[in-house]
């Protein structure tokens, strides 16, 4: 019997035993699974087993990229992608494939017990095959994770730049988190678009939530202010904390041409005053500090 078919034979004849042992091993080595997850694992295991059986019969064990392995690759891809999304660790995902080794080796030993060279060959082929399948699984896993990270970055970028309308003709842009070139670009674009849309005369950039201001960030802020001015809007910067004020001066950044205020409230007051509005207390107001 040719060795390449030793694997195919045991996959056919001992299928249920292998699956049983395989699932047991996964339960032993992995984390505790819920019954739904267990069912899912069992289902994928059975499908993969069926696919392996067909593929192994095709005599092209060494090349998992060939057409015979399409079905097996699809199943593995699905398993690892869904596990990546569900937050499994890499080793938990890899275990799905690698725990198939032991039952296969045991079965091979049983069927080829007396023929040492044939057994060695069969074991080698099986190991090689499973390693390839394992690598493929990890690659898919990694790719899915990277897709998730990319999407999250994009979402973060969109989330982190809200332009808020404070008053008729007054916009505020509360910045939170570290500013880098890519983010500043989005911020600038969003702010300028909002200025055009709302026909606002004033825009307040609040940097209370920006942890560090270095020369680059200051440069970006100045550019945004200049661009807003070119479009005909007045741009104020607020939320400058004491440390930030010190840093800006130590860095020698010239913010003299920009109106800066310590708090958003101060900047808002400036904007109201410049648009000719006054805030007064209503005469019939009974709450507040009145005794």
């Amino acid at each position, binding site marked *: 019997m040719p060795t390449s078919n030793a694997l195919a034979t045991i996959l056919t004849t001992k299928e249920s035993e292998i699956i049983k042992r395989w699932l047991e091993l996964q339960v032993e080595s992995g984390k505790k699974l819920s019954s739904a997850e267990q069912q899912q694992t069992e289902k994928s295991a059975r499908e993969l087993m069926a696919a392996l059986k067909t593929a192994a019969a095709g005599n092209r064990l060494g090349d998992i990229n060939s057409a015979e392995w399409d079905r097996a690759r699809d199943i593995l891809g699905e398993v690892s992608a869904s596990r990546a999304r569900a937050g499994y660790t890499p080793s938990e995902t890899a275990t799905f494939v690698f725990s198939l080794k032991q039952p296969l080796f045991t079965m091979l030993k049983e069927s080829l017990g007396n023929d040492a060279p044939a057994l060695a060959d069969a074991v080698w082929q099986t190991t090689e095959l499973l390693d390839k399948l394992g690598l493929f699984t990890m690659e898919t896993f990694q790719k899915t994770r990277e897709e998730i990270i990319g999407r999250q970055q994009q979402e973060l970028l969109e989330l982190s730049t809200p332009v808020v309308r404070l008053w008729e003709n007054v916009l505020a842009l509360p910045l939170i988190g570290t500013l880098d070139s890519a983010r500043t670009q989005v911020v*600038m*674009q969003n702010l*300028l*678009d909002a*200025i*055009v849309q709302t*026909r*606002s*005369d004033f825009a307040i950039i609040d940097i209370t939530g920006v942890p560090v201001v270095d020369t680059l960030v200051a440069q970006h802020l100045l*550019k945004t202010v*200049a*661009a*807003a*001015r*070119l*479009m*005909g*809007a007045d741009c104020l910067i607020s939320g400058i904390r004491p440390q930030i004020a010190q840093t800006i001066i130590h860095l020698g950044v010239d913010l003299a041409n920009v109106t800066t205020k310590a708090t958003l409230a101060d900047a808002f007051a400036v904007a109201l005053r410049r648009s000719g509005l006054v805030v007064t207390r209503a005469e019939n107001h009974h709450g507040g500090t009145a005794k």
Partner: protein
Amino acid sequence: MERIPILKMGDFQLVTIQVDMHDRLALTLQDDLMTQIVKQHSRGVLIDISTLEMVDSFIGRMLGSIASMAHLLGAETVVVGMQPSVAITLVELGLSMKGIRTALDVEKGMAALQAAVSASREDGDERPQV
């Protein structure tokens, strides 16, 4: 030859740039505008660039020099309706056009121009009415 129309509106000259500006056209506009300011005794110039999608450093500088020249002739200049992308480009080119007044649209630009002109009148810059 292609020219950009200059409209007279009371004391002001109104220019709406609606075609792609190339350098020759820009220089012609500059020439025509200065001639008109002197001829009509204008007090202000309003340049609307809201349909302009691309501005290079030459056009940017030209807008700046129009403002300075008009100032020499006693007229204030307001540039209105600059697109966000154009503003970003100019800033990235290092042209922040410090001497130019800007406004969001023609309406606000007109108001700014009137305010600027009446401010300079208060400074005693009164001109005999023609």
